[in-house]
């Protein structure tokens, strides 16, 4: 039997293949040879064969038949065999296969081997891919090696211990004694890995954290030596001594100093020293400064130090290196809540970053800019942000538009400015504006009574130019329907009134009805607007004609409306003027729960808050049975969806459809999300509107989480406590779609155990656009009076690439803060 071909030979041969098919053929041939060689239990060439197999595995071919061979190599006495064997184990085996457990004994023996390089291999493999069972069995050995005086092994044992702790946190205690004199080592490798180990222990256990606080002086000393000591060739990187160790120490100091005055005090000096003395011409110096800034901001540092930190970030913003600018923006975003004034000083630089070429930098700059907007700088900032909106990539437009609306609402210096700003957004980025902005804007316009004439005139003019942007068209239609009389009477004060006749207005609205560009929703808006004009215009006959035509429209929604409006003309004409009266001012605050709408034939009682009406009972019980089916068990209570999705097409046949247009939400403010603002549910308990736009979730204390991530659909939950009732957690789901096709008819349902109550509010839309171009957001409110651990079952249905997809999932990884 000729010797199997050498590894390099094989690689050379395979690389000569000109097609995928040729390569596959070569590989198959070689695999067959290797397989028969394995069958013959050939000890001599096993190592070579496994090495070849690993190469083929990297090209993407299956190599599972080599798994046992790796074990045999590990058990061999030859160092070459062991080296390849362990490498093969790390590449081919993982803890899902039972085979890997067979390694345990070999590793145990090798951990006690007489040659340190063999021990090293064992430690490396265990620390890289050891399963919990293996870690449990071998923790004792690792602990022993952690106390050895051989620094080569000690440093590896420390990182191996980190892995053991990550896999089996209960074992952390056993490593405590060995940590006693880790920091007195001179060897930098041991120091570095020891600091990593200490960091891991402190992050996992508050007791450990308290215990290790006493190490702060020692850590400070080590850091000081690194900075003050002269050139050390062994650890020097561009003039800085062991930057890796410096960064890790700074990170550990951050954890130890957080919320602790004494520790923070003890490290103030060294932090100031590092911050001022570190050379910033190369990336490595900036890496240390970055870590220093993070530490300063997180501990209880004195204000002078904090200002120093923010100034460092400000300097970073001016750095030519885009990586540095990126980390600066990220850090400033984290600190903008706590050190707002300091960050304000760098506002102009941040705004300049909006023009950066890099997408990540632009996004961060945008978020930060919104966070910095206040009453004083609103005009200037808005100019910049609107300019950004004009020129930015589509992926930003939705977020930017929402941000502009929010900022405008909070800080608008005048009503006219506000309306102008809205107009600008609608005309430039109108198609990217979120669906829920439309009702918010309508409410805003309604409440700016003195601006009605101006608004409707401007909207009308915008419609004449462009009817493709649906949100603009919808708002414009609504306004024309409401204030058409002001439009034709030419009453505008703010600007030159335009001359327009009733017929021209009706032409425009009818144009919307027939245009291919109009969505069904838009058509609904314009038909209703036409109807409303019947009490404001004199050309009632024309309107009657239009309405009767659409009585036989194919679109069910339009047909229904037209039929009802027809009925209004024929049988209820005496009520028509009352029904189609001007809308009253809408209250911004909302009440505690779904309020009863006084059902007076479509007009609401002005004193009652406009909210969504509860859906017909049949709809919710259908959903309930669906969930009960899928849940099977008895412990889950199905959610009652209290509001229909935003599309105005409701199942009810009443004239309440007039209100359905508005998809009203009581308060326009969003629930905070890391980067995507969504609209506030109508049922605010505190009645207060806005919260900070990009509320740092860390400040709110509850980290966001990914609840579901499968087949390209990812659902993130972000949390917030509802004021003033701490038993209610408000969860905002963000559904995003990374596949190349849209997910339509997307429905999210959730169920929780009996002790909870859950309220699911309407989603922002039911289409999750492809390639993460946007998200569907929906708000869930969970009442948890017994403070039990939150669990949830979710059901997702959507249509993707013409097939209907349903999926169930359990969400159990809620952070404790969300239900405690």
């Amino acid at each position: 039997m000729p010797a199997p071909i050498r590894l390099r030979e094989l690689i050379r041969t395979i690389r000569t293949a000109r097609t995928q098919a040729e390569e596959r053929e070569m590989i198959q041939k070689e695999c067959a040879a290797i397989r028969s060689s394995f069958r013959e239990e050939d000890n001599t060439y096993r190592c070579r064969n496994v090495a070849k197999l690993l190469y083929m595995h990297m090209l993407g071919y299956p190599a599972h038949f080599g798994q046992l061979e790796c074990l045999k190599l590990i058990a061999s006495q030859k160092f070459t065999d062991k080296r390849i064997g362990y490498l093969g184990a790390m590449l081919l085996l993982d803890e899902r296969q039972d085979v890997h457990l067979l390694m345990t004994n070999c590793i145990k023996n090798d951990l006690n081997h007489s040659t340190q390089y063999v021990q090293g291999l064992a430690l490396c493999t265990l620390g890289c891919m050891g399963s919990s069972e293996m870690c449990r069995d071998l923790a004792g050995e690792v602990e022993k090696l952690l106390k050895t005086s051989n620094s080569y092994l000690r440093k590896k044992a420390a990182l191996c211990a980190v892995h053991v702790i990550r896999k089996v946190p209960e074992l952390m205690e056993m490593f405590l004694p060995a940590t006693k004199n880790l920091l007195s080592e001179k060897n930098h490798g041991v120091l570095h890995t020891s600091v990593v180990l200490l960091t891991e222990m402190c992050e996992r256990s508050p007791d450990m954290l308290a215990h290790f606080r006493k190490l702060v002086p020692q850590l400070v000393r080590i850091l000081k030596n690194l900075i003050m000591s002269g050139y050390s060739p062994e650890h020097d990187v561009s003039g800085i001594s062991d930057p890796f160790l410096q960064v890790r120490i700074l990170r550990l100091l951050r954890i130890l100093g957080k919320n602790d005055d004494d520790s923070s005090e003890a490290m103030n000096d060294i932090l100031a020293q590092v911050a001022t003395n570190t050379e910033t011409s190369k990336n490595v110096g900036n890496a240390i400064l970055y870590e220093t800034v993070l530490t300063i901001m997180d501990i209880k540092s004195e204000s002078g130090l904090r200002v120093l930190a923010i100034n460092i970030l400000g300097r970073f913003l001016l750095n030519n290196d885009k990586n540095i600018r990126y980390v600066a923006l990220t850090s400033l975003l984290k600190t903008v809540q706590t050190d707002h004034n300091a960050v304000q000083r760098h506002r102009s630089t941040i705004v300049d970053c909006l023009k950066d070429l890099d997408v990540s930098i632009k996004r961060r700059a945008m978020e930060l800019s919104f966070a910095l907007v206040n009453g004083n700088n609103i005009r200037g900032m808005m100019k910049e942000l609107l300019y950004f909106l004009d020129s930015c990539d589509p992926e930003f437009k939705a977020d930017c538009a929402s941000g502009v609306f929010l900022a405008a609402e909070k800080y608008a210096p005048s009503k006219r400015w506000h309306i102008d700003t809205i107009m600008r957004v609608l005309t430039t980025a109108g198609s990217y504006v979120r669906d829920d902005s439309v009702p918010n804007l309508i409410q805003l316009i309604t409440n700016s009574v003195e601006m009605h004439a101006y608004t409707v005139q401007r909207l009308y003019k915008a419609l004449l130019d462009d009817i493709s942007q649906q949100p603009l068209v919808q708002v414009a239609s609504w306004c024309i329907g409401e204030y058409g009389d002001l439009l034709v009477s030419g009453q505008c004060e703010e600007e030159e009134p335009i001359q327009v006749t009733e017929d021209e207005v009706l032409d425009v609205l009818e144009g919307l009805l027939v245009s291919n560009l109009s969505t069904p929703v838009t058509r609904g808006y314009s038909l209703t607007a036409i109807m409303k004009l019947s009490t404001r215009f004199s050309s009632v006959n024309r309107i009657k004609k239009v309405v009767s035509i659409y009585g036989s429209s194919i679109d069910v929604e339009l047909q229904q409306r037209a039929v009802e409006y027809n009925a209004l003309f024929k049988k209820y004409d005496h009520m028509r003027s009352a029904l189609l009266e001007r809308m009253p001012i809408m209250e911004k605050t909302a009440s505690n729960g779904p309020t009863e709408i006084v059902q007076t034939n479509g007009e609401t009682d002005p004193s009652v808050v406009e909210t969504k009406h509860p859906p017909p009972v049949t709809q919710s019980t259908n959903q309930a049975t669906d969930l009960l089916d899928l849940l099977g068990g008895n412990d889950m209570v199905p959610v009652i969806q209290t509001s229909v999705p935003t599309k105005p097409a409701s199942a009810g046949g009443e004239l309440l459809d007039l209100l359905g247009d508005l998809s009203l939400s009581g308060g326009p403010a969003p629930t905070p999300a890391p980067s995507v603002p969504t609209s506030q549910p109508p049922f605010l308990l505190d009645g207060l509107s806005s919260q900070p736009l990009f509320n740092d979730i860390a400040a709110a204390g509850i980290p966001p989480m990914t609840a579901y991530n499968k087949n390209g659909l990812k659902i993130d939950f972000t949390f917030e406590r509802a004021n003033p009732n701490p038993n209610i957690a408000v969860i905002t789901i963000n559904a995003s779609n990374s596949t190349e096709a849209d997910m339509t008819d997307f429905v999210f349902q959730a169920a929780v155990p009996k002790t909870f109550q859950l309220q699911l509010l309407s989603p922002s839309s039911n289409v999750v656009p492809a390639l993460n171009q946007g998200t569907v957001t929906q708000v869930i409110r969970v009442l948890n009076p017994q403070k039990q651990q939150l669990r949830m079952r979710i059901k997702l249905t959507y249509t993707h690439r013409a097939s209907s997809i349903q999926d169930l999932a359990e969400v159990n990884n809620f952070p404790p803060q969300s239900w405690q």
Partner: protein
Amino acid sequence: MQFMLLFSRQGKLRLQKWYVPLSDKEKKKITRELVQTVLARKPKMCSFLEWRDLKIVYKRYASLYFCCATEGQDNELITLEIIHRYVELLDKYFGSVCELDIIFNFEKAYFILDEFLLGGEAQETSKKNVLKAIEQADLLQERVNSVVPVHGPTSTSLSL
């Protein structure tokens, strides 16, 4: 660090080191998607990107992309230094390393990586010490420490 990938500009994988347990299928999927994402980046863009819930740090050296996936607290700038240190180690070991060296000696590239990082963290911050350890291990490999095979080659070392 959760994983490190090395791939060419055509998207061919040259090295993959995983520090988290994932099935082969998941690894392939992640690799495919991430490689696509990184290769689509323009040269003027920064070295960091957010992908799923990870921070990806990548840098191109000649024809090879070095790509690391880090988590929340990790310092991106120092990760760039880690990548650079690994490249320096390869360079010193192979003498002006190029992609072909890593293709034909991939197992050595792994050995060097395993002396530098363990479980995703740096175990040795001195370049000299890492290279010394590799050197010693290579010598150990050369030495005969078991029975010379009967039908095998007559040289004392059985190379791959």
